[in-house]
């Protein structure tokens, strides 16, 4: 039982020819032969190389920057500081995926008056080669006034904490504060009567949690090549999740119109939310303008850790109550998440997700977005939900144990379903949490015994919204009856193929007869980021509609050819028929290509709902009591995919997210010294899972079709990371009797807890 697909009897599965099959991905050969071009692979004629100078201090006022020595070095072509960026407007904009304040973004790209975290970019150099650029960067003299730094979220909330921004007033729907603080936002939700709810409970559990800062850990460091031409046109080749989003950010940061900018998305070596906000593109652009040459600016790994967005560390307090019969009556959460150096972290979704798996009549949630002297946090796969799920799902587990109810049954009994009102207000449409838990319960894994000392089994579930947003596609029918699909979603994990398959299914042709192309911002309509698990859903919808557009045109043209009315023509699985005429898509396309204008399908969509994904895990662990090391023995993840277009890549998302969750649970964390310097900015010391650390990840794809998509697709990319830390924490409890409340549960941390418990 390794990878299975479950179609619950409550759903009526449709028959497909292409969807649900597993073709080889279209860009696969390029990627296994080393030919695929990632941003750092690019080399343009006369290209200069860039390097950064970064702040050695976690919090410091920048008194002066002297670039003269660096500029005088042979081979140095240009030096840039924040003085080269236009004064930013204090404007916050929705960028498809969360909002960005341009004053903050500009200040993050190159520090203005203050360096707000160690690794904050202060200046950059372009030179004839990378070594000269790096050497020159070190010749830039910066005078700092070092300020006290704060790196722990609760410390940063104190009245007398060092203030990062003297103009930051807490955003709240309540009354506006009159004094600045480090609290960027306060979110508050209420549902029902919380006092009453806890009064009805027979069991009430309240726990506090702490999680450390973790990084998305994509293997490709950020890289861009910029060419700012004398005609004022700027072209950027970059590693991004959203080429149009980069274009928008550049236009705002550089104060030039979007029409002057072309962004070419290169192949991208992972992002997970970390390659949406820009870092190096505007800096490379400014350097290019100053030296009149194309400039490549690529980060080193330590710069990626220290200078790009990790995802928040957190402090959380969660209290839940249930009756003897196992009915949840009340829940209360108090969450404080790091935002990093600028406000706008992941507290919104964290607050909305904390209780989103359950039907809870009475609840309150308070969420705080807190700035401190760490890099500005960014999204990381279901941003904010994983921390929150750790708290909720381990409290749920404790209640189930206390009540003597099976943990899966307890979750099933309280699971959110169609019509359940979430604590933040809206009710759910048709969702698949119950079916997902049911599939888990019926799995071979759940029904096989786990024996042996120091071993334990844990379960947990998780929720993520997923996004819709804007996508565009064009599809050109070629002379030979194949179709070229032109789209704008950078392909991080095989989406060219999942889109081509939806187009192929609609037209009744094979996936291999579609040639999907991800193109630049001048060559396709606006398309939001590859993020929010939206590409297969939303760009897939665009591909489907472009195919329908083609089909309409084919029908009209066939009607002319066959001298009948368009309505007379029957289309069935790609075969067009009228009386004795019967032609496949391909035959008809070939014929039409010589009898008139080209057939070009197009579509632009903007679906607005969230596609509501749920995931649930079973994990078996073995704890070594001598060292505190946790070994994952077996891991199963079940997820509602709506409809799996390419099951292998759905499994891949489930497995990848699970292993990231395992890393988050057991090893990954930023270590800071007392001056706010990260002590482990390398892959050696920031310990991500290797192949040797994990077992096979068994998957159960559950298909409860999404009513808002023609094939029933739900986003599948993100939710898989949400349950693992909680499931592992619950398994560790079963193995050791210890409830751990601090992620990661690294060997030293668990070893110490075991020693303390044993009275050592």
């Amino acid at each position: 039982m390794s990878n299975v697909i479950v179609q619950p009897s409550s759903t009526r599965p449709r028959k497909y020819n292409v969807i649900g099959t597993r073709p080889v991905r279209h860009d696969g050969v390029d990627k296994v032969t080393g030919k695929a071009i990632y941003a750092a692979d690019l080399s343009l004629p006369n290209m200069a190389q860039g390097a950064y100078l970064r702040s050695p201090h976690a919090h410091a006022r920048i008194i002066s920057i002297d670039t003269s020595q660096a500029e005088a070095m042979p081979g140095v072509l240009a030096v840039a500081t924040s003085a080269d960026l236009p004064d930013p407007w204090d404007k916050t904009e929705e960028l498809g995926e969360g909002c960005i304040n341009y004053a903050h973004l500009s200040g993050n790209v190159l520090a203005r008056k203050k360096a707000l975290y160690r690794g904050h970019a202060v200046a950059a150099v372009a030179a004839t080669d990378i070594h000269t650029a790096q050497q020159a960067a070190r010749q830039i003299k910066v005078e700092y006034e070092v300020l006290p730094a704060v790196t722990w979220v609760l410390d940063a909330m104190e009245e007398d904490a060092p203030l990062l921004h003297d103009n930051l007033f807490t955003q709240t729907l309540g009354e506006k504060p009159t004094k600045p603080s480090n609290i960027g936002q306060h979110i508050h939700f209420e549902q029902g009567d919380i006092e009453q709810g806890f009064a009805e409970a027979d069991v009430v559990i309240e726990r506090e949690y702490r999680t450390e800062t973790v990084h998305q850990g994509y293997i490709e460091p950020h890289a861009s090549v910029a060419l700012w031409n004398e005609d004022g046109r700027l072209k950027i080749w970059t590693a991004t999740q959203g080429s149009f989003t980069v274009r928008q950010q550049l236009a705002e940061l550089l104060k030039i119109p979007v029409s002057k900018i072309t962004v070419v998305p290169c192949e991208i070596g992972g992002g997970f939310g970390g390659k949406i906000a820009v870092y190096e593109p505007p800096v490379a652009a400014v350097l290019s303008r100053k030296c009149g040459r194309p400039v490549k600016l690529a980060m080193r790994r330590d710069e990626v850790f220290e200078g790009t967005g990790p995802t928040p560390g957190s402090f959380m307090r969660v209290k839940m109550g249930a009756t003897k019969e196992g009915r949840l009556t009340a829940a209360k959460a108090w969450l404080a998440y790091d935002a990093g150096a600028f406000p706008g972290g992941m507290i919104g979704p964290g607050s909305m997700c904390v209780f989103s798996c359950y039907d809870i009549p009475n609840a309150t949630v308070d969420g705080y977005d807190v700035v401190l002297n760490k890099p500005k946090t960014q999204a990381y796969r279901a941003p904010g939900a994983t921390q929150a799920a750790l708290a909720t799902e381990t409290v749920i587990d404790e209640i189930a144990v206390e009540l003597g109810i099976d943990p899966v049954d307890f979750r099933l009994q309280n699971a959110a379903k169609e019509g359940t009102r979430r604590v933040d207000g809206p009710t759910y449409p048709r969702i698949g949490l119950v079916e997902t838990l049911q599939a888990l319960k019926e799995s071979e894994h759940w029904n096989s015994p786990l024996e042996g000392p120091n071993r334990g089994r844990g379960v947990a579930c998780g929720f993520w919204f997923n996004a819709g947003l804007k996508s565009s596609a064009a599809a050109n029918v070629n002379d030979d009856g194949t179709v070229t699909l032109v789209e704008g979603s950078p392909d991080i994990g095989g989406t060219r193929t999942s889109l081509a398959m939806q187009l192929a299914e609609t037209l009744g042709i094979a996936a291999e007869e579609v040639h999907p192309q991800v193109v630049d911002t001048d060559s396709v309509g606006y398309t939001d980021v590859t993020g929010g698990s939206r590409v297969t859903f939303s760009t897939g919808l665009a591909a489907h509609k472009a195919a329908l557009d083609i089909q309409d045109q084919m029908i009209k043209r066939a009607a002319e050819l066959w001298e009948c009315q368009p309505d007379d023509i029957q289309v069935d699985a790609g075969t067009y028929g009228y009386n004795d005429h019967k032609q496949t898509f391909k035959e008809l396309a070939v014929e039409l290509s010589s009898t008139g204008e080209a057939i070009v399908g197009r579509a632009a969509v903007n679906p607005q709902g969230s596609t509501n994904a749920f995931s649930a895990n079973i994990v078996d662990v073995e704890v070594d009591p001598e060292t505190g090391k946790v070994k994952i023995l077996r891991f199963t993840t079940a997820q509602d995919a709506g409809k799996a277009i390419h099951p292998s890549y759905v499994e891949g998302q489930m497995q990848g997210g699970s292993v990231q969750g395992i890393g988050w649970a057991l090893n990954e964390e930023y270590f800071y010294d007392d001056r706010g310097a990260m002590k482990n900015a390398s892959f050696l010391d920031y310990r991500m899972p290797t192949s040797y650390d994990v077992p096979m990840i068994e998957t159960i794809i559950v298909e409860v079709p999404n009513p808002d998509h023609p094939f029933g697709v739900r986003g599948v990319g993100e939710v898989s990371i949400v349950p693992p830390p909680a499931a592992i924490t619950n398994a560790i409890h079963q193995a050791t009797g210890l409830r751990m409340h601090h992620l990661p549960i690294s060997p030293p941390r668990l070893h110490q807890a075991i020693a303390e418990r044993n009275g050592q």
Partner: protein
Amino acid sequence: MATIFIPAPLQDLTGGLAEVELEAVSLGEVIARLEARFPGIKDRLCDDDQLSPALQASINHVMTRQMRAEVGPDSEVHFLPAIGGG
């Protein structure tokens, strides 16, 4: 009549009312009517004439930030934090 759910922190302006029923065809109109009944509420929800960038509205499961977004006679309207995704 559409049902508008008033976020708890705004209920100081609605005299504790958690739900308000009103006649409106767009999100913009919802906010205008709320403002007419509960002065000051628009200031908390909007920056200039747009929904504050930290917020989004949910109208019958559809998330939107458009003031033009359609509100039907049976719609449920919620004001929620804006979210991103990875």
